[in-house]
């Protein structure tokens, strides 16, 4: 729907209500008494209370005024109307009893999973047991699978991280504990979870550093781990 069509619709609604307000002023002051003798002596509170309804339903009242203010005739079919409204009431609730549960199911099934907005780049988990080494300062244990094409880094995050967003980078220069222009973004770390990141194909065996960088606040390096096989690992 275009904005201008909606704006035009609101103009129409506004115009209708403006005419209604213009009609309502003389109606609540004088004309209401022509329709209903009880309204002729109504107090100011009554006139104020009916004003919004007059502004909204003015065509009905205008039509009745133009018909010489004839009072609404006694409802000869009141009993039939009551029976009709009873049936309508039953049908309305039978319809609601069907429609609303369907809406419930649809709304709950299709609502976004609040935990699904995770950062991508999460490859499938590695099979088999892995030897893990701890990363200083972070509740993370790390292992590396490789060397060669298909080399992967596996992280086991054992506790929630203090930082809201931590990124893992591979810096090809061994011993470099910072993130530089040549660094490759491997993915983001959250937890507790098990995460696997593929290393770039160009990564030589055992070369480079893994750098954990906080992306919030001052973007400081939280930890750095050399890709050289950790001492004592099988």
């Amino acid at each position, binding site marked *: 729907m275009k904005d201008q069509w909606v704006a035009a619709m609101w103009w129409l609604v506004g115009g209708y209500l403006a005419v209604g307000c213009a009609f309502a002023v003389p109606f609540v002051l004088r004309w209401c008494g022509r329709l209903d003798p009880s309204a002729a002596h109504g107090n100011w509170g009554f006139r104020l209370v009916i004003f919004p309804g007059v502004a909204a339903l003015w065509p009905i009242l205008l039509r009745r005024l133009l018909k010489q203010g004839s009072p609404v005739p006694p409802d000869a079919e009141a009993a039939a109307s009551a029976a009709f409204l009873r049936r309508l009431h039953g049908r309305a609730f039978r319809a609601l009893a069907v429609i609303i549960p369907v809406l419930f199911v649809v709304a709950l099934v299709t609502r976004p999973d609040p935990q699904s907005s995770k950062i991508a780049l999460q490859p499938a988990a590695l099979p088999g047991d892995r030897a893990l080494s701890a990363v200083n300062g972070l509740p993370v244990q790390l292992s590396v699978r490789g060397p060669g094409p298909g080399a992967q880094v596996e992280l086991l995050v054992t506790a929630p991280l203090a930082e809201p967003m931590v990124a893992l980078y591979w810096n090809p220069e061994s011993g470099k504990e910072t993130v530089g222009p040549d660094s490759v973004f491997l993915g983001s770390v959250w*937890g507790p979870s098990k995460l696997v990141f593929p290393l770039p194909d160009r990564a030589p065996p055992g070369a480079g550093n893994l750098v954990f960088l906080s992306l919030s606040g001052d973007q400081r390096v939280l930890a750095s781990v050399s890709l050289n096989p950790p001492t004592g690992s099988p």
Partner: protein
Amino acid sequence: MSVAYKAVGWNRQKRIYDLGIAGILLVAFGVYAGATLLLQPLTTAETLIIRFTALAALVLLHLILLIGPLSRFDPRFLPLLYNRRHLGVTMFCLAAVHGIFSIIQFHAGGDVFALVSVLTAYARDYFSFLRDFREVADVPFEVLGLGALTILFLMAATSHDFWLKNLGPSFWKLLHMLVYVAYGLVLAHVLFGAIQSEVSPAFPLLLGLGFCAIVGCHLAAFARERRRDRERAAAASDGFVLAARAQELSPDAGKVVVVNGERIALFLQEGRVFALSNVCRHQGGPLGEGKILNGCVTCPWHGYQYRADDGCSPPPFAEVAPTYPVRVIGDEVHVSGQALPLGTKSEGALLTALPTVAPDETQGAGVFYVGWQKTAPRAIAAFLRLRGGLVLVALCVVFFAAAFFQNPVDVGTFEFGVERTFTGTLYESPLALLQVDPGGAGGGKNFVLVGEGKFGPPPGLTAKNGDRVRLVGSLITRNGAAMIEVHRPESVEVLETSAGPAAPVVALGNGEFVGELVDTKCFFGVMRPATGKVHRGCAARCLSGGVPPGLLVRDGEGNGVVLLLAGEPGKPFKIDSELAARTLAVRGALELHSGTPVLRVASFRLQP
């Protein structure tokens, strides 16, 4: 039954009723506001108002819809029915406050008129569910709420006997039966609005319980009515049918019988049986469930009265109910289904075999409630006091649960009304940024610049790329991310032209990020909530007004940071505002600009 209309025909019962409504709402507000501010002190006043009025209106709507069937099952609930329109108008007022505050907060102050925005912020999604079923959850819930509010307005505006009389009872009743449509719209509004954002299962559970209670009661009441309508007797050749036996009648109390498919009320008054239509001319109340009071048949709903012999209301009132011929044969009461001309006086039929009933069960008002009487019968008052207390406790639990289980508010800070002076260098790429001079607060850091309301940086600012300037504005911060809402852009003072290049950019590599598209101004601290579907209209307006878009990426714990989205170097970046609050997968290069993470967007796609 007033002769000259008043705004409200106050009497003691109505005052007690209205004081009860006000008291319950005050307690509910105290519980909800107290618990919310205790558990989430950062909640803003407007968010508190929007949420409380929504919850209170929803709860009142459920109570209103329960009163009808409860009164059918137990007449001791009838006092609640007597003044139900005050409950309805109160509910509408709460819903209107909710709607007005929501429209102002989420749609006003942007590049599109607020009422237009309500209908167009979701324009992309009106029929998208036809293409993909999963898009159903993105239906424009605010439009559903607006529809419900319109119906509730018409009902509230016509909640006066003037309208009942001048629209005619049948049309008036039909108009007010639209409440069932409004109820359906309200439920859909909540299901596809708040419940899409709220994480706790408590909310759908509470809503489901309320719905089951209402539909269960109404369907049970309807089944009861239908059973009654099926009790028909065979008509004799002259049109009279056996309607009742003498022992079934009680002095001064009514009995409803069905003759030729029409409900007729039988009354035994001073030994004579009278029959008149069961339908009260006021709101269609069941006269046969009423009693004779002060010599008149009195409707149990609102106390309208009719003489049993001619069906006319006592002067000065002018309502007339049809009467029917009655005859008595032995202990059998026979009634004709053919009504007498309106206002015809009937002699009734003398009942020789009078029923023997204990006087205390039938005489006078007994346990019969009439709203315009000074006091309610003791038994009914005690009954309602107990139920009212239970309802109050239940409401306190519901409002506390709502405060306890609601999503935590977002945690930014917006120094609304506080102006600060900032000095630094303006850069337009990748976004309008002010790199504040070293030395002061936030020195060396980049502050994203936005305009007032739901607008991006004022156009004049970007023309001063590389200039060192002094400007005034309000600070917006969240978790180290910072933004300035620039005030009076025409008064920005240029201190030095071409002050120097921007700080070096740290390239962090390429990747694909999945997250929610947010407007950074709200997320950094202006709005709480600043994410999710309930905030979607506001995010759409902010994005269309030029506020920099951001991608909110979260970890498994729900924590998140926003990556500012920008185009690739040299390319402008514009994103469709109707994608606001949707989940996107964005591929691009991540950069750090003096600590500000910026994602240079190469491509993106909508995640289902």
